């Protein structure tokens, strides 16, 4: 299954550190980015050494003290690691109320009740059974698909504001359905001011939990068109990318899937994202992904031309069909390793493979977690990939930029305004980005958002829809820089 990765500034020193959720024998690891640009492992110093099988990592400032805490999903028991603000973490799992056993996958912090504290959604997978045996058609032993195991209901935890959480899975409705969940996104997808939850399920229909604003969630995945693909087939959902690919100012979703299924793009249709439609065919995203098993994924404007491109980290989970009785036995990386994909957006939500000469595509690995950030502060987004049975890889974006850029951080109180949606108005075009840490597969990203400006020479305004639905406009303050917009101030604060 692999594990996730997070890029975040754990010590608030202004640069981005890296956390790998890890799995045996390597285990989890935190790397601090030093002033010379090199990464140094500080797992033990930070108090993040862990035993057992790690899965995902969710970032969130649970106590609004301005530093990012970690929620680590695991095969047996999850852990909440509270950031002490001095470069170390403390395991507060049991005191905080995280006692549930079972296999969790992705997790996402968001403020579901708009009380100012980040709540937590935890996607959960199956009950593992090591005695279960599965084979390929020819009888070769292989990993089992999830449908041979019982699945687990996901969990929703409400932040009490005192460092502890209450399990509200049952009363919220989230606990009513069980499915093998892998990807999770918590954001206001229907633009009503309340955080909704989208869950990518492995081989069963996806869930779209719409928040009624009164503590209840109902699964509207079927009617809103994101439970299955156009053919009504429940696919093997893994990673999730979110972004507005067609410039209609509504967020779209992209899901990665197993080989022989296409990855799927759902675009919003109708006012206030009333529904979504499977636009995979028209987008050109179907056939290129079909030979691969996609996991981590992200939308990003690679070359700053003003539209969102797509990256996909691939790696098999089932043996490929054998070519021939004469075929020699393959090694593990040969069986499960795959190349990654970069899909370039033409600007009209049509994508083509753009892999030529790119290391990201050329390196074959069993890739799982992926996340993006401008780790080298050069204005473009870079990539990091966590590989199963192999070293992680850091990819610096060396694409020649065709336009300017802007990086925006939305701040609410002492922390990032998780759940906000930022609109950037530039000549003739509005781009939107969600402020969220939850992304991709088992992974987390920084909350600041990145815009490529294309041919626009300037930014006219930045509009933020804050959690709760309030809208605030900020004057733009230059380009090719990071700006912060603070709730209630209605002005931008620039930084070099």
């Amino acid at each position, binding site marked *: 299954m692999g594990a996730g990765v997070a890029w975040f500034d754990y010590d608030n020193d202004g640069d981005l550190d890296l956390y790998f959720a890890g799995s045996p024998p390597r285990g989890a690891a935190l790397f601090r980015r030093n002033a010379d640009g090199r990464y140094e492992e500080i797992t033990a110093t930070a108090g993040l050494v862990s035993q057992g099988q790690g899965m995902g990592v969710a970032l969130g400032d649970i106590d609004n003290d301005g530093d990012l805490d970690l929620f680590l999903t695991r095969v047996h028991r999850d852990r909440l690691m509270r950031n002490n603000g001095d470069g170390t973490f403390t395991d507060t799992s049991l005191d905080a109320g995280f006692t549930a056993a079972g296999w969790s996958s992705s997790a996402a912090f968001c403020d579901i009740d708009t009380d100012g504290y980040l709540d937590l959604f935890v996607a959960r997978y199956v009950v593992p059974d090591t005695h279960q045996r599965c084979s390929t058609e*020819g*009888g070769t032993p292989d990993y089992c698909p999830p449908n041979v195991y019982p699945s687990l209901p996901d969990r929703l935890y409400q932040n009490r504001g005192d460092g502890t959480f209450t399990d509200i899975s049952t009363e919220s409705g989230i606990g009513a359905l069980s499915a093998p969940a892998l990807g999770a996104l918590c954001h206001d997808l229907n633009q009503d001011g309340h955080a909704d939850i989208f869950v990518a399920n492995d081989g069963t229909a996806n869930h779209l939990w719409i928040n009624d604003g009164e503590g209840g969630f109902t699964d509207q995945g079927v009617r809103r068109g994101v439970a299955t693909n156009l053919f009504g087939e429940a696919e093997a959902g893994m990673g999730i990318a979110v972004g507005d690919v067609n410039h209609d100012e509504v967020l779209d979703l992209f899901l990665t899937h197993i080989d022989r299924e296409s990855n799927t793009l759902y675009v919003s249709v109708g006012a206030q994202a009333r529904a979504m439609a499977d636009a995979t065919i028209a987008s050109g995203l179907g056939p290129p992904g079909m030979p691969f098993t996609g996991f981590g994924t992200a939308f990003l404007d690679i070359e700053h031309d003003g539209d969102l491109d797509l990256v996909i980290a691939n790696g098999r989970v089932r043996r490929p069909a054998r*070519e021939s009785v004469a075929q020699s036995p393959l090694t593990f990386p040969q069986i499960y390793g795959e190349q990654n994909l970069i899909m370039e957006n033409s600007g009209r939500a049509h994508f083509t493979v753009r892999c030529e000469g790119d290391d990201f595509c050329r390196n074959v690995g069993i890739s799982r977690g992926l996340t993006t950030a401008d780790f080298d502060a050069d204005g473009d987004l870079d990539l990091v990939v966590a590989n199963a049975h192999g070293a992680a890889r850091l990819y610096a974006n060396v694409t020649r930029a065709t336009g300017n850029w802007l990086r925006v951080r939305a701040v609410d109180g002492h922390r990032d305004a998780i759940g906000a949606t930022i609109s950037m108005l530039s000549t003739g075009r509005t781009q939107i980005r969600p402020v969220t840490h939850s992304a991709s597969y088992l992974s987390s990203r920084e909350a600041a958002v990145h815009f490529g400006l294309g041919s626009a020479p300037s930014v006219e305004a930045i509009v933020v829809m804050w959690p709760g639905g309030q809208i605030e406009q900020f004057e733009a303050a230059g380009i090719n820089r990071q700006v912060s917009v603070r709730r209630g101030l209605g002005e931008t604060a620039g930084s070099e």
Partner: protein
Amino acid sequence: MRPPVQCLFYIALTLSTAAVEAAIPRDAHLEPQVAEHIARALSAVEQTPESGSAWGELGMVYQANGLIGDARTSYTQARRRAPNDYRWHLLSALVEAKPHHVTQRLGEAHARAPDDYALVILYADNLVRTGRLLDSRAFYEHARKLDPGRGYADLGLARLDLLDRSLDQAEAHLQRALLNSPRNGDIHTLLAQVRQRQGNNHAAEQSAWRARSYGPGPRPRHPLLERMRKEGVSSALLQERGRELLAHGDFDTARQLLIRSHDIRPGAETQSDLARVDLAQGRFQQALTRYREVLERKPNNADWLTGAALALVQLGNLEAAEGQLRAALGQQPDHADANEAMGKVCLAGHRHREAAEYLQKTIGLDPTRYRLYHQLGVALENAGDPRNSLAARQKLRTLDPVHAANLRAVARLHLHLGDVRAAATTMRNLMSIHPDDVDVGLQLVQLLATTAEISSPDARDALEIATHLYARRRHDARFADLLAAAFAANARFEDAIRLGKRALTLAGDDPELTRTLSAHLDHYVHREPLRR
């Protein structure tokens, strides 16, 4: 264990000459029976190397056993030797790696068998997936002409309409598809999306609920692909096919395949599958023995604990069954089978409130088990909760409008709750579905004749139905009495008295019935209709 060397073959298929060479495989990693099956198919090719069918059959054996490259090569040879045989083009399509090659092969197959419904659908679906939407529409239209009685072509057209954002047309296609397969969850899924986009949230939610309850609909499967799959002889494939057949109720064949799989590769999984077959075929003691055997290896397996419990229920040992189910639920509280079985055990033990909780949970965990609303209705009614019982039964009525026992219960519950009109409507509905069910008619007429206003439309309906029923049961006192009551409800008291007297005659020596009929006759003599 490696098979004997003399039974192993490795044949290099040389495309250019199509010569067939036998050799010893290096390390084929194949189960022995798979290697032997391939060897037999190879032998047929050796004997008739110019036969397209022999090459095609060899390709099927390779494909079914997961040797895709060898299958591709064999089908290429088959196509060269029998270019007009659509089968090898179709099967070639399924082993092609590149999407445009798949489309090309399917197109070739279709050109050779243009009126093959399943092939046309397969081709049309493929064209949609590769973005050739206009072409695909023509093929769906063609499929609909070939077999108007199947809904899949309409479903395909609805998908295209949805892509075009032609919501009204999509809905029209879906409604037509529903006429042919009203419980196809795929159709309801699309209908939910259409209604959501139309802004009709309530209807969208209703359709989504139906979609979840019915589950995915059947897809047209080409018989040739089924035939190819049968060439798969590895233990895993035999087990997989055995499980599929078990799910489809073909227990004898499922058992054969599972036994073959178990003989090749004995294991607890196939043993438990065989226990499920035993359970399904009524060999409860054998099923229990098998479950006990596998539970010795893994005592906490919730599936097997539940299976053993189901066998114990059938053997009449409810107490032991409950123990097993509690153990299963201790392991997996959300185990749908265990919750369902527990609900039924509680129902049998008259613990109705508890039964209702388990059954409700089961439906929540697996909405496709919507038929459990019937048992849930029973449990709630017996637990003294007629309103929720009626709500459960109304849900079942929505999903299964012809469930007779449920409709009877709905009518009964309406009456119990004092809603005579709703009860009568339900009974009328039941009669329209089961026109020959005289008991239903009897109940409906009794209801209408004793509640309707004199000479009202309901009273006239009662008389019409009573006349119809009496014509079928002229020598039954109850039906004569019924017709008398219907006459009285229409103020035709002379006729009522005449039929009332005939009913008395037919009652013979039954003193209780005679007493009742006499009382009814007194009403008519006094020109009064019967009243509930």
